[in-house]
């Protein structure tokens, strides 16, 4: 139920929602320290319930991978559950399960992260297991042989048999011509077919070091307690140099690219993506915050422009959305997708025309004060709502740290957005919404191929 509601408040903030305390509640005490081996630790106290979340974030993901070796970060994530010095394959999961913990992991283009949510007295077990696999992963070949089959099933389930997911994978490969964001996180099937456990060993040794990780703990803990435990379990793992990590930089204006796909879909749809910077790569952060506000104006709620004008007013689209993740390690995309309202006989060409009217209006006409005020109200409330979940707080902190920004941005969030003027919004629209930065995908039903 929550998904779309979150989307409305959250899109404005990219894929994450930054909890800020300043408004209506007291700030939650947040502390950071770094162990001698370079492991950075951020602790946020939340004493509402005797539970805690522990997340470890490694600075490695699919944007670090090279052609022929796609999918390594994600496959390594799977193999991190297959045993280390103190536990056999799968045993760590069983131990955590029996303690009533929720645990899992996720891989993206910029990071690989592992987490446990558990009763506060069990935190030491989470730390010991996490430290053990940071220091001494086993990577048994026979486990890999089975696990790569599971990963291929995952790819079939989530991409190959999902027409829109497949379309978006191909779209991304086109829209990022220069950077590692080209690469699908799960990896191309041909690379999964030829992946070797030795490659995973190298990947692990290269990137899984304490100095390349951030440990985030949110919940019913004190900083002293966490400091003691972190030192005890992670402190002895030696520091090791990691390969140089280059930021994923894109061509600013690669020229318009167009992709037409016929997939097993019933209805046509389109995807637009403009090459734009992220917060970590922008010359002027103000332009990034302006793009975030633009995304909120377009799609930050049911009263925003895409739903109120294109979906309801003109009945041009059956659905449309925009998205912009500013919190990336490298350059980003400003995305719009839409499905024409076929009951009203609208076509993709009609939708493109309608979208450009919206984009051009952003260039020519400043948003109204009332519109901006609504956006701001949602930001302020969203910052409070996000604090209801310890996991969402930890994820915000971990992601910011891992893409090279600081969790302290959270405290500046509202000010940064307030400083954006209507003119900044127009300038950003003029700079970024151009044909030279645009990739277009037309996703069409298969039968059209024969027309």
């Amino acid at each position: 139920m929550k998904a779309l509601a979150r989307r409305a408040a959250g899109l404005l903030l990219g894929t994450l929602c930054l909890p800020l305390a300043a408004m209506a509640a007291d700030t939650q005490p947040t502390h950071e320290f770094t162990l001698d081996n370079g492991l950075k630790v951020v602790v946020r106290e939340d004493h509402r319930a005797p539970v805690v979340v522990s997340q470890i974030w490694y600075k490695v993901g699919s944007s670090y991978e090279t052609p022929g070796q796609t999918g390594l970060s994600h496959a390594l994530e799977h193999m991190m559950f297959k045993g280390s010095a103190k536990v056999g394959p799968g045993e760590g999961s069983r131990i955590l399960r029996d303690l009533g913990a929720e645990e899992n992991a996720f891989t993206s283009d910029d990071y690989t992260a592992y987490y446990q949510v558990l009763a506060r007295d069990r935190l030491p077990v989470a730390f010991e297991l996490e430290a053990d696999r940071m220091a001494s992963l086993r990577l048994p070949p026979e486990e890999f042989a089975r696990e790569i089959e599971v990963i291929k099933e995952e790819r079939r389930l989530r991409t190959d048999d999902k027409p829109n997911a497949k379309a978006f994978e191909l779209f991304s490969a086109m829209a990022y011509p220069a950077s590692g964001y080209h690469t699908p996180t799960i990896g191309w099937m041909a690379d999964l077919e030829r992946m070797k456990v030795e490659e995973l060993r190298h990947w692990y040794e290269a990137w899984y070091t304490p100095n390349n990780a951030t440990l985030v703990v949110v919940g019913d803990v004190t900083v002293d307690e966490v400091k003691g435990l972190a030192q005890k379990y992670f402190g002895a793992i030696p520091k090791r140099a990691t390969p140089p990590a280059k930021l994923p930089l894109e061509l600013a204006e690669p020229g318009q690219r167009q992709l037409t796909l016929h997939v097993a879909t019933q209805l046509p749809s389109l995807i637009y993506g403009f090459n734009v910077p992220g917060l970590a790569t922008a010359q002027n952060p103000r332009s990034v915050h302006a793009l975030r506000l633009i995304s909120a104006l377009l799609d930050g709620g049911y009263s925003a422009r895409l739903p109120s004008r294109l979906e309801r007013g003109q009945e041009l689209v059956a659905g449309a959305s925009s998205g912009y993740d500013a919190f990336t390690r490298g350059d980003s995309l400003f995305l719009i997708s839409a499905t024409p309202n076929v009951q009203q006989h609208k076509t993709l060409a009609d939708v493109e025309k309608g979208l450009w009217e919206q984009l051009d209006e952003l260039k020519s006409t400043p948003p109204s004060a009332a519109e901006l005020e609504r956006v701001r109200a949602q930001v302020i409330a969203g910052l409070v709502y996000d604090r209801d979940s310890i996991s969402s707080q930890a994820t915000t902190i971990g992601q910011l740290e891992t893409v090279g920004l600081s969790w302290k941005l959270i405290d500046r969030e509202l000010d940064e957005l307030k400083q954006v003027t209507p003119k900044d919004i127009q300038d950003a629209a003029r700079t970024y919404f151009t044909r030279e930065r645009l990739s277009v995908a037309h996703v069409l039903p298969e039968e059209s191929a024969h027309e």
Partner: protein
Amino acid sequence: MSDRRAPRQTFVGAGLFALALSACTLLSAPAHAADAGKPANTLQSLAELDGKAPSRRQLNVQSWKTAEGARVLFVEAHELPMFDLRLTFAAGSSQDGGTQGLSTLTNAMLNEGVAGKDVTAIAQGFEGLGADFGNGSYRDMAVASLRSLSAADKRQPALKLFADVVGKPTFPEDSLKRIKNQMLAGFEYDKQNPAKLGANALSAKLYGSHPYAFPSDGNAKSIPGITQAQLRAFHAKAYAAGNTVIALVGDLSRSDAEAIAAQVSAALPKGPALPAPAQPSEPKPGITHIDYASKQTHLMLAELGIDRNDPDWAALSMGNQILGGGAFGTRLMSEVREKRGLTYGVYSSFTPMQVRGPFTINLQTRAELSEGTLKLVQDLLADYLKTGPTQQELDDAKRELAGSFPLSTASNASIVGQLGAIGFYNLPLTWLEDFMQQSQALTVEQVKAAMNKHLAADKLVIVTVGPKVPQKPLPPPTEKPADQPLGVPEH
């Protein structure tokens, strides 16, 4: 904003942007066994745990009835300056009365118009206050929810608008037409979703002519003919105060909460609770195949399960947890994924409802292994029913349940969900505690007996969705047994 579930989010847009991030979460499940075959676990931290069940947030659930007969459940939580209000109505598709999709359409139309405000003005009203309006409609229940800051200048106007939306919607004709079109587009999208195709076929086979047989959002034939008058009539009876449970959690005093409940309840139509649907009759077992051009075959197995007030719920929940209810290390996951690499995930569940809800097992596997995999899953279920869980499995599952208890009430969002379910199914306020105590007292024999009382290996209704391809035999499993974790303390 609305988080209506039927039309809008079926479209590309809603799904797309989540992909980049979510593409690859999850689930490196444990594997059995392996290498050295020794119980390698030498965790110091585990040995140091004191073995007591963990403490948890103490909830003081307060409950009363409004003058109009709505049941209220309230938990005061002042830590964050916000509150959650959730109304649950017995207004799901089991109340459609032959007009399939009427319940979903009514629910989706709540925030499309009230006196003096159209859909955009309503959305602007909530969003300008930073409030989240949510709605959704399912088989038994329909939900309308509000999350708002608790400061009076935000709370009061948000509540006033919410009360109008749930109590006095105008169901404007232009919105009705648009939402119908969106639902029709949604049905088109469903055709490219083998999981949805399979789930619809499974419900039909399992429930026959019972209301649970039909998808809660209706179908392309039923939706176009639904009229404004039908929505009004459905709203008047199914969104009546006596048919409503009000759950409230957050930064409110008891008197605030009483005032809010009274305000919302008074805004609703007057009327009693609707009767639950009749119990379904036993389906005919058998396999249905839907031909579909995909790489994987979806396998769905089901039987009738239980209603929410069944005294066997604790035993069945525990029995299912061991069979396939958790992510890691369940019997199904161990055998199908971990030992053989046949699937990304396999899960079983009981869905207790107002009347007998389904027991289901779901998985996907590569098409050429689908027959062998289906046979394997059937054998695993039959074997489990025959032998029951081991003492070790039961002890582990009890520890897991006790350990996860604190997580179930850690956030306002999770508490309001628990209160809604307790209220809707008329469970006692002590239900969370009772369930925990019953679960901890279970024996192997009780779990086995309950599973066999409600399930039988030869009663499965099965639907498969995928391409017809020549079948291959399954790969042999790894035969090394799992290391059982040692040293997990008792509690």
